[in-house]
């Protein structure tokens, strides 16, 4: 009896959520589909697509930003890995923290991160974003950035060469392929 009651409750809930539901037709949400797909081999195919289109946001924050822009230029040809610089957070998959985060800039950075559409990943580029770097003991630098953002790959260097940033992207691709990235929950 108890089970039946529970089932009835679930049906009622569904009706309450979507008042225009048709009898006999099961409705679902995109979240539910996504959660179902994560358990099937189809996710491997999706991840293959995701890892080969890591569009990153051109959001330079310091001298590392110059290297990031250089990485996006023609010389390093990141397009062969599907890595393309984008100007808008709405079109980007990857945010690169490319410099020290000051207390004043942190709210803006959070807003940019919130504006990006999921699935999204985040890279910490350079010593400044990892630990503070030369601005380690500054009065207005935010430390321990990994407590605020789910950072997948740390790229040390001051600044890292474009090859290093590219290697970071490739490591992120490997993490996505192995389903160990922090951007999506498995």
């Amino acid at each position: 009896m108890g089970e039946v009651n529970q089932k009835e409750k679930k049906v009622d809930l569904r009706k309450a959520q979507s008042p225009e539901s048709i009898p006999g037709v099961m409705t679902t949400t995109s979240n539910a589909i996504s959660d179902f797909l994560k358990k099937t081999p189809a996710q491997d195919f999706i991840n293959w697509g995701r890892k080969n289109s890591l569009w990153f946001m051109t959001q330079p924050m310091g001298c590392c930003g110059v290297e990031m822009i250089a990485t996006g230029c023609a010389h390093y040809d990141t397009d062969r890995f599907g890595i393309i610089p984008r100007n808008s957070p709405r079109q980007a998959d990857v945010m690169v923290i490319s410099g020290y985060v000051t207390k004043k800039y942190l709210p803006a950075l959070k807003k940019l991160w919130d504006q990006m559409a999921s699935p999204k990943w985040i890279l910490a580029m350079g010593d400044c974003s990892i630990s503070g770097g030369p601005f380690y003991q500054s009065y207005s630098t935010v430390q321990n950035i990994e407590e605020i953002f789910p950072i997948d790959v740390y790229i040390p260097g001051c600044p890292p060469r474009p090859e290093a940033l590219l290697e970071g992207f490739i490591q992120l691709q490997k993490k996505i392929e192995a389903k160990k990235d922090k951007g999506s929950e498995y």
Partner: protein
Amino acid sequence: MDAKKIIDSISTEFPDSISNTLIDSDIRISAYVSASDVVNVCKYLKDNLQFDHLSCESVVDYIDRDELENVYHIASYIHPVVLTLKAILPRDNPEIESIVEVYWNANWYERENYELFGVKYINHPDLRHLVLPEEMLGEWPLRKDYEGFPQNTAKNLV
């Protein structure tokens, strides 16, 4: 207009407020000014001695003497002399008249000094924070006794 003439001129015009005058070289002179008379001295410099622009305005914290020094670098496009004016302020409640009405570019210098040292500029047109976030007002991070530095808190030391 040479260094000696400038020093003599301001010393005779403001005998009470100008002190400790020093001629470093032909082009660098310095003097202490009393904080209450800064605007009048600056007006005199601009109108009579051809000091037509303010190069820099900054603050130095002398914690041993329990004093702040407000430092003005005033220069000219007509003669080569740069005048360093210093005004001594008490450390617990530093207040000085703003010189924005004389040198307009002092506006942002004074805002920066306000957020970093807590010097209050009287009659400043828009005295608020400049670079730091507003929440940090009151901490005065460039004072010598500031203790808000993050000490060894980063986990990812490279």
